[in-house]
C-alpha cells in the first residue's frame, strides 16, 4: 500500500517537478547574443564592423601566487602590476573577478601559453571601426543603455539602432552525464536574430579625399573647424559627409560630448552669399527678373529700415545685370530682388526650397529653424534675407536646396543609406525620393548658366579648374556674437555642382572662423575645387572646355 501511494505521489502529484528536474539534468539553455549589423560603404567596405574581443577574468581562489601571476599578466596585458595584484588581493574570497576588457585574440593566446591557473576569458562581440575616425559624426557610436545592453547613439548607429541591434534568444542543448553538450542545438525555435546591416550611399574613397582636403584646408587657413558635404543632386544620395573637429568612435568617452553632434544636420548658421542663388532663382521663376534685368539701386549703399547696407568690398556697379549681381556678390542688388519678391513670395519660395524645414535625412539629431510668419518680418529682415544674413539654415538644408537647381528644379530627399541587408541575405532597397519642384526646369537651366558665369568670372575664378564648367557661389557670412556682427569672424563657404551640363555631384564647403583670410573665395573655394578635381578624376570625367 505504501509503495502504491509513493508511486501515485511520484507519477501524479509531483510529476511535473520531477520531469523538470530530469530535463534540467540533460538539457541546458545558452543565451545567444545577436551580432550587431555592419555599416558598409557603397564600395562594400565596412565602416563599422564587429570584432571578437575578450574579457580577462581571474578566480583568485585558484591563483597559487598572486605576485607571480600579476607580473606575468601585467607584461602581457600592458596593465600596471600593482593594479592587478591589488584587485586579486582585495577579492581573494571571490570566485570571479574581472581584470580587463578589450583583450584581442593574440594577447589571449599569449596568456594561455603561460598556463596560469585561475585565469580565463569570456568572449564578446565588440564594435570596431576599421577606418578609425573616418566619418565619425556620420556613424555615431555604440554605448550602453540603462540595462547594460548595446545601444547606438547619434548618427547612423543611433538612427538605425533598432535595425542594427538584432534580438537575443535562447538555444537548447543536450548534455551528457558529465554536463558536456552532446548536441549543440536542439531547438529550431530560437528567437535570436542578428542585426541587419546597412549599405550606404557614402563612397569610402570620396569620404577619404573629402576629409583630407577639409583637414588640410582648416590647418592652412587657420580655421577653428569646418565641414564638407557631397551629394548626388539627381538622387539625393550623400556621397561624403565630413567635419572637423571630430572624435574617435572607438573611444568616444575620451571626447567632449559637443563633438558627437553632427554639425551638418544640427548646427544652424547664417549662409551668407551662398543663399543668393536661391533668392535669385525664386525671382526668376516668378518672372520678376531676367538674367539681363538691370539693378536701379546698385550705385551705392542702400538704406533699409534705418540701416545702411553696403557691398562686401564697398564697390558699386551701377546698372548691374542680375548675372553681374551674382558675379560681384552684390548685396544691394540682392536687396532689389528681395524687395521685388516681397515677404509673402520670399517665404513661399524659400519654403519650396525646404528652407526652415527638416530635410528628413536618415540621421539622428536633425534640426531646423522655421521662417518667421509674414507679420513678424521687418523691412530690414527682407533685405538681409536676400543676401543670406538674418536667416539660419543647416548645411544639409542649404545643399539640398541648391542641388535642386542642378536637378532641373527637383529637390531630392538626402539619403545616407541605400540598402538594408537582413541576416538571411534579403536586400531592402531605399529608392531615391523626390520631395517637390522648387523652380521650373527652365529657371534651373538659366540659373545654372548664371552660376557658371559666377565661377568663371567671380572672385573665386582664380581657383577654378580650367576645362570644366562648374556652377558655384562663394559665401562669407559674418557671425553674430553678443548681439552684433563681428566683421573679423566669418563662416567662409563655397557651394557648387559639376559638371554644369550633367551634374554628377554637388558640394558645400564651410570653414568656421578662418584667420588667414576671412573670405570664402580665398579659403573655402580652393577646398571645393580640390575636391572637385579629385572627383573628376575618380569618375573619369573628361574636360569639356578648350579653356586653357
Amino acid at each position, binding site marked *: 500500500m505504501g509503495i502504491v501511494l509513493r508511486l501515485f505521489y511520484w507519477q501524479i502529484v509531483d510529476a511535473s517537478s520531477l520531469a523538470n528536474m530530469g530535463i534540467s539534468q540533460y538539457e541546458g539553455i545558452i543565451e545567444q547574443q545577436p551580432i550587431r549589423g555592419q555599416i558598409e560603404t557603397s564600395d562594400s*567596405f*565596412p565602416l563599422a*564592423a*564587429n*570584432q*571578437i574581443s575578450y574579457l580577462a577574468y581571474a578566480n583568485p581562489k585558484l591563483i597559487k601566487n598572486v605576485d607571480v601571476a600579476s607580473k606575468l599578466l601585467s607584461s602581457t596585458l600592458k596593465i600596471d602590476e600593482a593594479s592587478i595584484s591589488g584587485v586579486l588581493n582585495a577579492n581573494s574570497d571571490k570566485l570571479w573577478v574581472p581584470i580587463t576588457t578589450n583583450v584581442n*585574440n593574440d594577447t589571449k593566446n599569449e596568456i594561455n601559453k603561460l598556463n596560469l591557473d585561475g585565469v580565463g576569458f569570456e568572449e564578446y562581440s565588440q564594435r*570596431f571601426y*576599421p*577606418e*578609425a575616425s*573616418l566619418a565619425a559624426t556620420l556613424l555615431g557610436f555604440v554605448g550602453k543603455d540603462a540595462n547594460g545592453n548595446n545601444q547606438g547613439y547619434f548618427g547612423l548607429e543611433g538612427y538605425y539602432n533598432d535595425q542594427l541591434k538584432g534580438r537575443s534568444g535562447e538555444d537548447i542543448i*543536450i548534455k*551528457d552525464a558529465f554536463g*558536456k*553538450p*552532446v*548536441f*549543440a*542545438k536542439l531547438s529550431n525555435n530560437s528567437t535570436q536574430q542578428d542585426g541587419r546591416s546597412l549599405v550606404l550611399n557614402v563612397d*569610402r*574613397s*570620396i569620404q*577619404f*579625399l573629402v576629409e*583630407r582636403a577639409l583637414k*588640410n584646408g582648416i590647418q592652412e587657413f587657420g580655421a577653428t573647424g569646418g565641414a564638407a558635404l557631397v551629394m548626388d543632386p539627381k538622387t539625393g544620395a550623400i556621397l561624403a559627409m565630413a567635419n572637423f573637429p571630430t572624435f574617435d568612435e572607438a573611444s568616444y568617452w575620451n571626447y567632449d560630448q559637443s563633438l558627437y553632434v553632427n554639425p551638418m544636420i544640427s548646427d544652424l548658421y547664417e549662409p551668407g552669399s551662398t543663399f543668393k542663388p536661391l533668392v535669385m532663382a525664386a525671382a526668376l521663376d516668378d518672372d520678376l527678373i531676367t538674367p539681363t534685368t538691370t539693378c536701379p539701386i546698385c550705385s551705392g549703399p542702400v538704406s533699409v529700415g534705418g540701416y545702411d547696407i553696403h557691398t562686401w568690398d564697398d564697390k558699386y556697379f551701377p546698372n548691374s545685370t542680375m548675372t553681374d549681381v551674382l558675379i560681384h556678390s552684390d548685396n544691394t542688388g540682392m536687396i532689389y530682388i528681395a524687395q521685388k519678391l516681397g515677404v509673402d513670395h520670399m517665404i513661399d519660395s524659400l519654403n519650396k526650397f525646404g528652407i526652415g524645414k527638416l530635410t528628413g535625412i536618415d540621421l539622428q539629431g536633425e534640426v531646423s529653424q522655421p521662417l518667421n510668419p509674414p507679420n513678424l518680418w521687418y523691412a530690414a529682415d527682407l533685405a538681409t534675407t536676400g543676401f543670406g544674413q538674418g536667416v539660419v539654415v543647416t548645411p544639409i538644408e542649404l545643399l539640398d536646396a541648391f542641388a535642386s537647381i542642378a536637378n532641373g528644379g527637383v529637390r531630392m530627399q538626402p539619403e545616407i543609406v541605400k540598402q538594408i541587408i537582413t541576416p538571411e541575405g534579403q536586400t531592402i532597397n531605399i529608392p531615391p525620393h523626390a520631395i517637390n519642384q522648387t523652380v521650373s526646369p527652365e529657371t534651373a537651366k538659366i540659373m545654372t548658366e548664371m552660376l557658371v558665369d559666377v565661377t568663371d568670372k567671380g572672385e573665386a575664378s582664380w581657383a577654378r579648374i580650367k576645362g570644366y564648367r562648374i556652377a558655384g557661389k562663394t559665401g562669407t557670412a559674418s557671425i553674430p556674437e553678443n548681439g552684433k556682427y563681428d566683421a573679423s569672424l566669418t563662416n567662409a563657404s563655397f557651394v557648387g555642382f559639376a559638371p554644369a551640363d550633367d551634374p554628377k555631384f554637388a558640394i558645400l564647403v564651410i570653414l568656421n572662423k578662418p584667420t588667414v583670410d576671412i573670405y570664402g573665395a580665398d579659403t573655402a573655394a580652393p577646398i571645393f575645387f580640390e575636391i572637385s578635381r*579629385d572627383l573628376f*578624376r*575618380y*569618375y*573619369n570625367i573628361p574636360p569639356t572646355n578648350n579653356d586653357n
Partner: protein
Amino acid sequence: MKKYILLTSLIVIAISLQVVKVIYSNMFTTTGIDLNQLLTQEQNLEQQNIIISDQLYKKTAYTNIEKEAIKKGLSYNSNAAIAIDGNSPIALR
C-alpha cells in the same frame, strides 16, 4: 515444459531488447559527440574567419594605407598626396 520454454523465451527477448537498446543509445551518443566536435570545429573556423576579416579590414583601411605610405616615403612630408583613381591602387603617382 511449455511454460518454462515460454518464460525463458520472454526473458531472452527482454534481455535482447535491452541489449539492442543499449547498443543504439551508445551509437546515438557517439554520433552526437562527433557532431558536437564538428560543430565546435565549425565555430572555431568561423571565429578565425572573423579574426582574419578584422585584420584584413584594418590593413586595407585608407587611414592605415596613408600612414604606411608616409612611413615609406611614398608621400610628401606634410600631406599624403594620394591620388584616388577607381582603376589604380592608392599611391603617389
